[in-house]
């Protein structure tokens, strides 16, 4: 990974060069130091990874938060739009030239910049009734958009899809600008599930960060465990035991299948088909049984440890997987017949929500949504980690980049994951699952590592000052960038398609809001 420090006013030309060379903005965050705010841009390339890290210093000059300014690159990279809003609200950096520099994750009325080190927590005993009143003022904006009366002369109006809506997969709000049923524009509004993971991890020990990993993307938590383990092992120079390595990959792939199953069920639910949801959950329960044998948990896994896994797998673990694989393969064939070959499904999803390659690059889309656009980018192959270099698996792609191909790519990914599982299940070596001694903290320095989660590239950027807690821990979550890309998919479709598009890109809200 190359690292360059550029001046504030050069960043736009650097970003332009990067875009011209086919780099996408993978991660963009900031670190608060005593004299300046350090902006950290991570650019990455499709195909074999060539990461380049660019840094910009925004001097504080004794000013207060909000007064620190730097040029925006949101006109070059569309994904920077949300990243910059996030940095603005958490660090008080103003991005000159940003079209819409509002709060992203916190309520409009907030006056805090929580990720600054000068923020020492909300005063004890913040009164709920008072804050409720404040927050209800926020919803006035909600209401004014709603109140664009239906009797007015022009025929367009606003519709708030969410935050409580059956098919927003959590608490996402999409503000739709409609004419009749036709969508003129749509804007996702997030933050309804913001759980201050990043600030929280700054006051926790490194070991204490594990439970957070399970609760970010709770549907595919094993990949997040994997990501943190990789980061820690890279920083501490640990090598996990072979047995632990095997268990980790098995767990991650099983969890990927269960995550895709949940997605498939809810996506079909969005399209109005109820029954696939129950079939998918039935299969998912079988996977959860297997995972539960080893982890003791059904959902928010907190299983990996630095250099190993928390506890050993029981004896019936491997036989259970072996029973499950043929059964599930049969089920997959059923799904294919019932869902993909159904004419209504085909008509509803073909040509829907097209994501062009240019947009995918500009928004930094990763994961199955990107592979459905014909780009075979998969960190398991492009930046091999753990056991993946020794395994035989394909990276399924599709060319149409519509909702149908996103379905098809995820479907085939399940088959590939099964292939990986069946390669490993017979070869789990004996031995220890934990290292005897592990350090308590990361050595002083900064670390970036990424892995492939069920939804795309999960990157972690950690700054350690050598103490027992992280100095700054930023999580680059795949759905954050993927969701932003729907802004360009929505115009022109109808309300029914909005939920189908939302479903097809597979989002998990707490992972976006963090």
């Amino acid at each position, binding site marked *: 990974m190359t690292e360059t420090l550029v001046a504030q006013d050069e960043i736009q030309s650097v970003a332009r060069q990067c875009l011209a060379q086919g780099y996408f903005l993978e991660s963009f965050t900031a670190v608060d130091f005593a004299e300046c705010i350090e902006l950290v841009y991570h650019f990455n390339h499709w195909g074999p990874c060539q990461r380049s890290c660019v840094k910009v210093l925004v001097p504080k000059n004794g000013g207060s938060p909000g007064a620190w300014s730097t040029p925006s690159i949101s006109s070059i990279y569309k994904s920077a739009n949300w990243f910059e809003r996030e940095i603005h609200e958490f660090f008080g950096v103003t991005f000159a030239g940003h079209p819409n520099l509002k709060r992203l994750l916190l309520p409009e009325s907030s006056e805090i910049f929580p990720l600054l080190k000068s923020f020492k927590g909300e005063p004890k005993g913040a009164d709920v009734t008072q804050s409720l009143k404040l927050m209800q003022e926020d919803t006035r904006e909600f209401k004014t958009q709603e109140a664009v009366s239906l009797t007015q002369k022009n025929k367009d109006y606003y519709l708030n899809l969410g935050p409580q809506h059956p098919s927003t997969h959590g608490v996402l709000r999409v503000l739709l600008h409609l004419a009749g049923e036709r969508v003129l524009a749509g804007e996702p509004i997030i933050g309804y599930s913001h759980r201050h993971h990043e600030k929280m991890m700054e006051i926790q020990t490194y070991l204490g960060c594990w439970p957070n990993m399970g609760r970010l993307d709770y549907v595919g938590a094993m990949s997040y465990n994997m990501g943190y383990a990789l980061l820690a092992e890279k920083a501490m120079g640990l090598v996990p035991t072979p047995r632990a390595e095997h268990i980790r990959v098995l767990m991650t792939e099983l969890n990927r299948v269960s995550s895709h199953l949940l997605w498939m069920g809810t996506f079909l639910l*969005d*399209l*109005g088909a109820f029954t696939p949801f129950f079939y998918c959950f039935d299969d998912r329960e079988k996977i959860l049984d297997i995972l539960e044998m080893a982890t003791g948990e059904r959902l928010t896994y907190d299983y990996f440890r630095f250099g190993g896994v928390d506890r050993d797998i029981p004896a019936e673990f491997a036989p259970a997987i072996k029973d499950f694989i043929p059964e599930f393969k049969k089920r997959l064939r059923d799904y294919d017949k019932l869902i993909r070959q159904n004419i209504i499904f085909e008509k*509803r999803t073909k040509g829907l929500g097209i994501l062009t390659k240019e947009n995918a690059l500009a928004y930094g889309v990763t994961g199955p949504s990107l592979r459905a656009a014909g780009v075979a980018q998969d960190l398991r192959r492009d930046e091999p980690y753990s056991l993946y270099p020794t395994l035989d698996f394909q990276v399924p792609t599709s060319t149409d980049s519509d909702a149908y191909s996103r379905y098809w790519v995820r479907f085939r990914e399940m088959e590939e994951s099964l292939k990986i599982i069946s390669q490993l299940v017979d070869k789990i070596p004996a031995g220890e699952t934990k290292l005897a001694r592990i350090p308590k903290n990361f050595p002083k320095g900064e670390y970036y590592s990424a892995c492939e989660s069920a939804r795309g590239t999960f990157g972690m950027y950690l700054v350690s000052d050598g103490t027992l807690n992280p100095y700054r821990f930023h999580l680059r979550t795949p759905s954050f960038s993927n969701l932003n890309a729907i802004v360009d998919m929505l115009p022109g479709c109808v*309300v029914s398609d909005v939920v189908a598009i939302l479903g097809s890109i597979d989002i998990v809200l707490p992972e976006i809001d963090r």
Partner: protein
Amino acid sequence: MIFKELIKIIIYGTLVVLFISVNALFLVWAERRVSARIQLRRGPIHVGWQGLLQTVADAVKLISKELVLPKEADRFLYILAPMLVFAPLLSAFLVLPLAQNVVIRDLNIGFLFIFSLTNITFIGIFIAGWSSNNKYALLGSMRAVAQNISYEIPLLLSTMGVVLLTGTLKMSELVPAQAKGWFLFTQPVAFLIFLCSSLAEANRAPFDIPEAESELVAGFHTEYSGMRFALFFLGEYTAIFISSAIAAALFLGGWQGPLLPGLVWFLIKTYGIIFIVMWIRWTFPRLRSDQLMALAWKVLIPLAMVNVFVTALVLELQKILA
């Protein structure tokens, strides 16, 4: 004389309302059990024997729920709408031939009377969506009206084949005309079109776009609570029963059948069709509104017209040959 008539009206009215309620309770229970069976579940089994009391509990609860009246709603229309949806369906029972000689009023215009009256429910649905002052409800009711107008045409056209064969609209004459063979076999295309259109008329999946749960929250009845909501529900299930009953009378030979009494045969056939309707609901994804319109105008209506034309042609040829 007038007195006698009055008593008759009261008795029949009570019977019909009773039947509608019991029928809806049974159908909701059946729907939940059928869907559970399809979805690898058990469905309601703990409230009463086999969960039969489940829907009774639901009904009692709905009656005792608070009736919310949204502040911004158009009060008069908001209260009127559920009644307008429910009441016209009662009238349909006037002409249903439940068994031989068991028809309340054997009208000359027969099932045309049912179609013309049950369509008032769509005005009710539109009023419900409009008066709720909720955008989801309004979208749902706009979809309902568009859907109803489109599907009314193939629905009526598909029955015309049967009318051509018998030369009457009277329900009591349509059924005996099938003594030799059900119209299902002579008019198979018409039957499929009828089934398809009646699904759409009753807002059932895969044509349930007016209440599309995953898109429009609950569609036109988003703002309705308690008994007012229950009336929509009751209306929906009664509409399914009526259209299935008509299908049974027109295409499956109505009350005719060996051994069992006519009423039993009629109910068996009707509930058989309802079962198929449920089966379809839990199997298919939902269509989009424009695809729904396209299906009506580009496929069903031309097909129904061809069907009428071919039937007429065959009849004429038979006449010439004879």
